[in-house]
C-alpha cells in the first residue's frame, strides 16, 4: 500500500472535516426548522469533541498501551479541533456569550481554539528555527549554561596580563559584556528574539582590535565566542519557553473547558423544560 503524502493526507482530512461540518449544519438547520432545540445537538457535539480532544493527553500518559501512534492521535486531535470550532460557531448566538460563566466559558473555548491553531503553526516552524542554531540545550539546564558562560568570561578578563589591553577590554566588559552575560534576557528578547544585541556586541569587540595587542586580541576573540554562545542559548531559551508555555496554556485551559462544558451542559439540561 502506497503511503499517503502529507499534502494528500491534509486535503483528505480537511474534506472529511468539511463534510462532517456540513452534515452537522444540515441537522442543525433541520432541527431549528422543526422547532426542536438544536442547541442541545450542537452543544453535545462540541462536548463530545472536547472529550475526544482531551484523549490525546491521556494517550500521551499511557505510552505502554497499544492505542496507536501519538502522531496519528495528534492528527485526529488537530482535525477534531477544527470540527469542534465549526460546531461551536453554530452553537452560540454570539462568539462571546453573555453572563459571567458563559462568557468565561466561551473565552476559554476561544483561547483553547486559538492556542490550538497557534500550536499548529508553532509545531511547524519552531523546530526548524531551533535546529538552525548551534547546540542543543535542555531547557532546565539553560541557567547552568548561562552561569558557565558568565564565569568563563570573568576568568578570561582576570587572566589578561597586558595593562593597556586589560584597561580597554575591562572597560568594555564592565559596560557591555557583564550586563549581557550576568543577567537574564529581556522580556522583549524572549517575546521576539533577534540578533541585534549580538551584532552590536560583536561589532564593538571588533572595533577594539586597533587598540589591542596580540594577547588581548585573542581574549577579545574568546569574548566574541562567548557572546555567540550566550545569544544562541537565549534564542533556544526563548523558543523553547514559547513552546512550553503554549502546551501549558492549551492543556490547562482544555481541562477548564471540559469541566466548564460539563457544568454548562448540566445547567442547560436542567433549565430546558
Amino acid at each position, binding site marked *: 500500500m502506497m503511503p499517503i503524502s502529507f499534502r494528500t493526507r491534509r486535503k483528505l482530512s480537511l474534506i472529511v472535516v468539511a463534510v462532517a461540518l456540513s452534515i452537522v449544519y444540515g441537522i442543525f438547520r433541520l432541527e431549528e*426548522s422543526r*422547532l*426542536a432545540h438544536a442547541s442541545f445537538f450542537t452543544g453535545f457535539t462540541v462536548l463530545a469533541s472536547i472529550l475526544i480532544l482531551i484523549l490525546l493527553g491521556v494517550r500521551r500518559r499511557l505510552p505502554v498501551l497499544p492505542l496507536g501512534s501519538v502522531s496519528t492521535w495528534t492528527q485526529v486531535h488537530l482535525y477534531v479541533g477544527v470540527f469542534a470550532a465549526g460546531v461551536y460557531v453554530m452553537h452560540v448566538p454570539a462568539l462571546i456569550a*453573555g*453572563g459571567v460563566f458563559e462568557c468565561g466559558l466561551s473565552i476559554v473555548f476561544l483561547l483553547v481554539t486559538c492556542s490550538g491553531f497557534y500550536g499548529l503553526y508553532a509545531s511547524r516552524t519552531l523546530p526548524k528555527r531551533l535546529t538552525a542554531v548551534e547546540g542543543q540545550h535542555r*531547557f532546565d539546564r539553560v541557567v547552568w549554561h548561562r*552561569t558557565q558562560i558568565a*564565569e568563563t568570561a570573568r576568568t578570561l578578563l582576570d587572566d589578561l596580563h597586558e595593562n593597556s589591553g586589560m584597561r580597554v577590554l575591562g572597560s568594555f566588559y564592565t559596560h557591555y559584556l557583564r550586563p549581557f552575560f550576568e543577567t537574564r534576557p529581556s522580556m522583549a528578547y524572549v517575546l521576539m528574539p533577534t540578533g541585534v544585541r549580538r551584532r552590536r556586541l560583536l561589532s564593538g569587540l571588533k572595533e577594539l582590535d586597533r587598540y589591542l595587542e596580540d594577547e588581548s586580541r585573542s581574549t577579545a576573540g574568546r569574548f566574541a565566542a562567548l557572546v555567540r554562545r550566550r545569544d544562541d542559548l537565549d534564542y533556544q531559551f526563548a523558543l523553547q519557553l514559547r513552546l*512550553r508555555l503554549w502546551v501549558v496554556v492549551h492543556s490547562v485551559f482544555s481541562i477548564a473547558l471540559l469541566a466548564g462544558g460539563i457544568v454548562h451542559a448540566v*445547567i442547560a439540561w436542567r433549565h430546558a423544560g
Partner: protein
Amino acid sequence: MRRDEINLSEPPNNDRPGDRWMCGRTGEPCVRGPIGRGQCSSSEPCRPRRTWHGRRKRWTLVGMLTIVAAMIVIARPATRAAIVKPGELSTPHAQILSSTLDSRRCAACHPHSSAVGDSVANVTQSDRCMDCHHETMNRSTATLAHNLPARVRSDLRLASLRLAGSSDRDTTWRDWMPSVAVDQENVQCNACHREHRGAVASLTAMTNDQCQTCHSDRFGSFADSHPTWDQWPYGRGGVIAFDHASHATKHFPKTILEGQPTSFECGVCHARQANGELTRTTSYETACQTCHDGALRIEAAEGVELLTLPSVAKRCADAIGAWPEGATGFYDGRIAGLADLLIRVDADANAAMRSLPNQDFAKIDDQHDQSEQAARIVAREHRQLLETIGNEGQSAMVERFAKSGISPSIAARMIRSLPPQLIEEACRRWFADEDNLAETTSTNAPKIRPAAFKMPARGDDDLLGESSDDDLLGDPLDSDPLDLDSQETKSTVQQPSRFDADAMLPAGGWFRDDRTFAIRYRGEGHDDPVLKAAIELAGELTPGDPARTRLLETKSLAACIACHPAAIAATRTSDERWRSYPLVGRPREFTKFAHSPHLNIAGLSDCRHCHTIAAGSVVSVSANQHGHEFAAVGIEACAGCHQSSAAGDACVKCHRYHVETSP
C-alpha cells in the same frame, strides 16, 4: 582553534526530564542530585531548583483549584443568576426581573432551576410564562397550536383543502421534510420564543420553515406557491352598514356644491393618524351629519311609545270601570311593544294579550264573547299598569322589565328620564270619573273626549293647519251621528289642545298625548340615549317575540338599525353594538396589515389602487353580514413587492401565531 572559539565544560547529567527538582549548584554539580521534595542529600547542601516539569505540575494544581473554586461559586444560589446566564434577556423580561432577588431570578422562569424535589415538580416553564401573560391569552388554550382546539384546526385545514381543491395542491420537497418536533396539543412557549439572545433580539422572530413545520401542506415562496384567498379583507364585516359603493357612485356625484359635483375622498373619513396608520372608522359628525342629520332628526322625532290606551267598545268600557270616553266606541289600537313587556308579567293578562290577533284591538270580533273578555282584561291591565307606575314609580317598571327578561341596566337607561308624575297625571286625567274630573279640571281642560287627531301644523301647509276649518280633515269617527248626547256635549265642551311635541320638546323627552291616550318619547336625533336603550332592549328579546317585532317596526328605531345593524345583537356589549372598531389588524387576528408603510409608496398612496368597488355590489345590513361592496384584494396585489429579495415574504410579516376564534 581559531581565536574566536572557546570550549566550555559539559553540563551535569545528574537529572532526567521528568524530575521535578534539579541541583541548584552553579559550578560543579553533585553526583546524586536532589531527593524527594527538593531536598539536597549532600554534606554541603545546595538549594535545589524546580524543573520546568515541576513548575508545570504546580501551575496545573493551582489551575485545578481555581476551577474547583469557580464551580463552588457558580453552585451558590445567591450568585447563580448573576453568573450563569447563556445570554442577555430581552429588554422587557430583563426589566421585569430587575427587581427580583438574584437567588430567585432564574426560578422566575425556570421552575426546575431550584433544588430537586421541591413543590414545583409539575410546573412547566410555560406555566411561568402564563403567570404574567394570562391577561392576553387564555391559559387553557395557551399550549395548543395557534391556541386553537384540534377540532377547529382540523376544520380550518379541511376548509383550506376545499378552497384550494385537492388537485391544485402543489407538492414540493418541503412536504417530505420531517414533521414538527413538538406535540401540537402541547406546544411550549419556548418552542418558538427563544430567550437569552440579547436585549434587542426579537422573541417573535420565526423562519418560514419553522412556521410551516406543523402544516401538512408546505410551500416555498409567497409569490409562487402561497395559497390564494378570496375574501381579504372584506369578509370580516363591520358594525356600521356604510355603503361605499352608492356613496361613491351615486350620492356624492349628485350632490352639487358651487356648481360642481362633490368628490368622494377616502381620506376625509380615513385620515392618516400621527403614527401613520389610517383612521379605520370615523364619527357620525365627521362623515354623516352634513347630509343625513335633517332626515335623521325627523325620523328620530317619531320616537317610541311606552303605552297607548286601546279604544274599546262601550260595553267593554263599562265593564272595565273608569275608562276615558275618548277611548270608547269601537275596538282599535295595537298594543305597544314596551307595554307588551310590562303587561306580560301578569299571566292572565299575558294569555289574554296572546289571544288577540296580532295584539291588535282592531281585529277583535265584537260578536265573540271570548275576544271581548280578552280585550277587557288587556284594557284593564293597561289602566292598572298606569296606576302601578303612578304609585310605585320607575322601580315597578324595572321590576316588570326584569321579569320579561330585560336587564336592569338597559331598562334603567330606557326609563331614566320618564317621571312618575307624568304617569300619575295621565291616570288622573284619563281615568277620573266625570264628576271628579270636573272638580279637578278647569274650563280649559274639559272632560275627556275622543281625540280629534289632527296632524300638527308644519310650515305653511294650510291643509294640515290648525286653522283649517275643512270638515273633511276632521276625524270622521269624532262624532257619532246617532249619539245625540254626544252632539250636545260637543257643542258645549272645548276639545283638549293636542300637545305639540315638535314645538314643546325640541330636545326630546317623554310626554303625554291626551288625544291618543299615549305615553310617548320623542327622540332628539343621532345618539339618542332612550332610542339606543329601546333597540338594546329589543335585542334582548328572542327574534320571534311579537314585542320585539313591534319595537323594531317603529320608524325611529328602524332608522337607527339601518346604519347600526349590530345594535340588536345581544351578544355584544353596549359599546360594541354602536361603535365600530377596526376589524382588520385586531390583536388576535390571524392576519395583520399596516397601511402606514404601504402609503409611503407613491403608487399606493391612492386608496383606490387596492380598494376598488365591485360592480353590482350590495351592502347587507343584517346583523351578521355587513358591507362587502369592495372587490377582494388578491394575492397578486401583494406578490409584486412581497418577495424575499424585495419587501420580504416571511410568514410573520402578515400572520400572527396566537389567534382566537371569533366571538
